[in-house]
């Protein structure tokens, strides 16, 4: 059950919870995603509310299955964190050309301040570059409402739409009053080859249609979009979107505000009209991360002040920082007292793995997950980390150029969920462009997507709702890709065996995969409970079918 009562008339819920509820109330038929902080809870909550949701191997596949559903006249959703959009962007940049037949909302969660991300990229750039309409809620009620508007706009204009969230909006709780349900759509196949097959002959006119659609949508956004003008001071106006709205209201309660809810395509006429009121007076744009609004507004010939980017484009905004932006304070941010950094849990299997890799003085090409914490002192045993799946490719690159004695020390280390996400093609690369020294890949298989809060994936043998699923065999993939050796070992129970395996593998000029399998200690209890429940369910179903067969005399 979700952590809130979905039938209440008024509720205190997070932005993510609000979206999951809005998905139910909008009768979304299909939702897919890949876990990523701060977006993860949306699909989990949606599933607990009775919606159909699935984890995909990665964001690109999630987007593709959701797009297929939207082609089939369904309402679909795909969720991801902002770096996931890089993986899925290939889908987005052409899905805007085709548009959709049902509705499709891309929920993309940015992480200003990098609470749990490898970079601080701003999804608004993707929206503009891919020509994808975008909404930016600033609290839970707007997350609920804007999701609905996103669905309706997607349906009306037949185009995928981005709901751009940020960590604060995802994870802060505020009050939501829900609305009535939207009637469900009826999935149906309709042939439209020229509209759905993006060969150049069909794609060129589609690109022109898309730009024409944006003109229409901008006019709609000016007339009916979820934007509002709040007139107070006649001398000071601020243009704002997303969470910054609330910081601004608190930091400058006297200021007039143009609050933008739909930020692509921008309602430029609305902005011009607002700016006109402050000609010769003070007009500011206040936004988190990139100077995205400011650049677009200035490019339209509107004079306005914006934040001092060498300081304020980094990190989250808050009330104090907004006060400083308004005051023109260009001093560096005060340095907060450093808290205790997160670390690997006591008893975590990753500790055993990295202690050994350190002992063998390996050059570790690492990846994304809890184990990335092994790069920090006192372990300090990871040398590279860039993006999901990169451990394997980077390891092969290093093996190719380093002097032999260094190349022989390179190990690619990757978690189980990350391996499924983007590591498989790395194995294919290793088999195809085999380095002279071979290579050693270690999958740290803790049997769950631990980092984001214990989500299932194709290697766990369970679906998003923990029901049984086909379980991927990593060793079989490696063999097919051309690996010479595949081993499995529990590195916690048999540390000496693990060490010997890695040592031997490093000595050979062969391709070796070692699956170091030991479950996440935080997830172990849940894993056992899920497996037990699935086993009992299967036994019960078997007993029931046997009884039925007996009764019908078919036994």
């Amino acid at each position, binding site marked *: 059950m979700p952590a809130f009562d979905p039938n209440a008339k008024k509720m205190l819920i997070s932005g993510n919870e609000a979206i999951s509820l809005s998905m139910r109330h909008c009768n979304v038929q299909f939702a897919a995603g890949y876990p990523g902080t701060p977006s993860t809870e949306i699909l989990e909550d949606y599933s607990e509310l009775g919606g159909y949701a699935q984890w995909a191997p990665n964001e690109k596949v999630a987007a593709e299955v959701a797009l297929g559903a939207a082609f089939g006249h369904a309402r679909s959703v795909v969720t991801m964190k902002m770096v996931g959009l890089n993986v899925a962007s290939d889908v987005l940049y052409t899905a805007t050309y085709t548009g959709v037949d049902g509705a499709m909302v891309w929920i993309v969660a940015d992480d200003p301040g990098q609470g749990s991300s490898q970079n601080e990229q701003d999804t608004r750039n993707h929206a503009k570059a891919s020509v994808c309409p975008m909404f930016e809620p600033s609290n839970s009620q707007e997350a609920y409402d804007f999701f609905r508007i996103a669905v309706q706009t997607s349906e009306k204009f037949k185009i995928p739409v981005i709901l751009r969230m940020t960590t*604060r909006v995802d994870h802060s*709780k*505020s009050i939501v009053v829900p609305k009535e349900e939207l009637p469900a759509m009826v999935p149906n196949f309709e042939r439209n080859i020229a509209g759905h097959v993006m060969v150049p002959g069909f794609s060129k006119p589609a690109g022109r249609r898309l730009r024409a659609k944006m003109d229409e949508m901008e006019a709609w956004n000016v007339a009916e979009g979820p934007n509002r003008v709040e007139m107070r001071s006649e001398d000071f106006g601020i243009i704002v979107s997303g969470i910054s709205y*609330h*910081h601004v*209201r608190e930091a400058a309660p006297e200021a007039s505000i143009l609050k933008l809810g739909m930020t692509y395509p921008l309602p430029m006429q609305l902005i011009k009209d607002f700016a006109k009121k402050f000609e010769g007076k003070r007009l500011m744009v206040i936004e988190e991360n990139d100077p995205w609004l400011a650049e677009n507004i200035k490019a339209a010939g509107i004079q306005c002040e914006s934040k001092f980017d060498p300081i304020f484009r980094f990190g989250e905004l808050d009330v104090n920082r907004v006060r400083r932006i308004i005051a023109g304070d260009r001093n560096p941010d005060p340095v907060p*007292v450093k*808290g*205790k950094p*997160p670390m690997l849990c006591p008893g975590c299997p990753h500790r055993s793995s990295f202690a050994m890799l350190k002992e063998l003085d390996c050059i570790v090409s690492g990846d994304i997950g809890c184990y990335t914490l092994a790069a920090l002192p006192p372990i300090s045993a990871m040398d590279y980390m860039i993006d999901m799946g990169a451990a394997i490719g980077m390891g092969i690159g290093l093996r190719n150029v380093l002097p032999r004695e260094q190349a022989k020390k390179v190990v690619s280390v990757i978690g189980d969920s990350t391996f499924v996400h983007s590591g498989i093609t790395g194995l294919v690369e290793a088999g195809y462009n085999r380095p002279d020294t071979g290579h050693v890949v270690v999958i740290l298989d803790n049997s769950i997507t631990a980092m984001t809060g214990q989500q299932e994936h194709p290697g766990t043998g369970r679906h998003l709702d923990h029901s049984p699923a086909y379980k991927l065999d990593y060793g079989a993939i490696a063999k097919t890709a051309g690996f010479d050796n595949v081993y499995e070992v529990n590195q916690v129970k048999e540390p000496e065996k693990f060490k010997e395996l890695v040592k031997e593998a490093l000595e050979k000029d062969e391709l070796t995969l070692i699956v170091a399998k030991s479950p996440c200690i935080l997830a172990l209890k849940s894993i056992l409970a899920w497996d037990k429940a699935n086993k009992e369910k299967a036994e019960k179903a078997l007993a029931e079918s046997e009884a039925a067969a007996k009764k019908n005399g078919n036994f």
Partner: protein
Amino acid sequence: MSVVNVKFAGLGGTGVIKASDVMAELVFEQGYDVKKAEVHGMSQRGGSIASDVRFAKGEEVQSPMIPTGEADYLVVFDETQVVVNEAFLKQGGVLLTPADIDVSKLENVKALNVAMLGKLSKHFDFTVDQWTVALNKLFAEKFHEGNKKAFMLGREG
């Protein structure tokens, strides 16, 4: 009245989020506008964690985050986290730490967060029953009895 700001802080696993959820639920049920901020993700791996609850009647709470120097109450569940968070406390604000509780009388050390809520409760007019309703809503039934004791230990101790 103006916005009341309560900041909870501690280390991952000390019940920071839960305590802030109880406070937020309590004031929500009493008809206040309320916002609650927290950061997930790395938090469960033992690092510093804080959660802000802001509430008001008759006016809207804007930012979900308490600005530096504006917390009316700073409730810290791990002494090491006082220095990390004290800049948030306003001049004359109330700081509560585990030192304010007779921890030896706690039947379950995990209920320290609930005992701290009991201590905090003395600064508000909400009744014990109102607090209990919020606590019971946020915790599984098997904890209700123990929570009540821990809460009263903080409130009366």
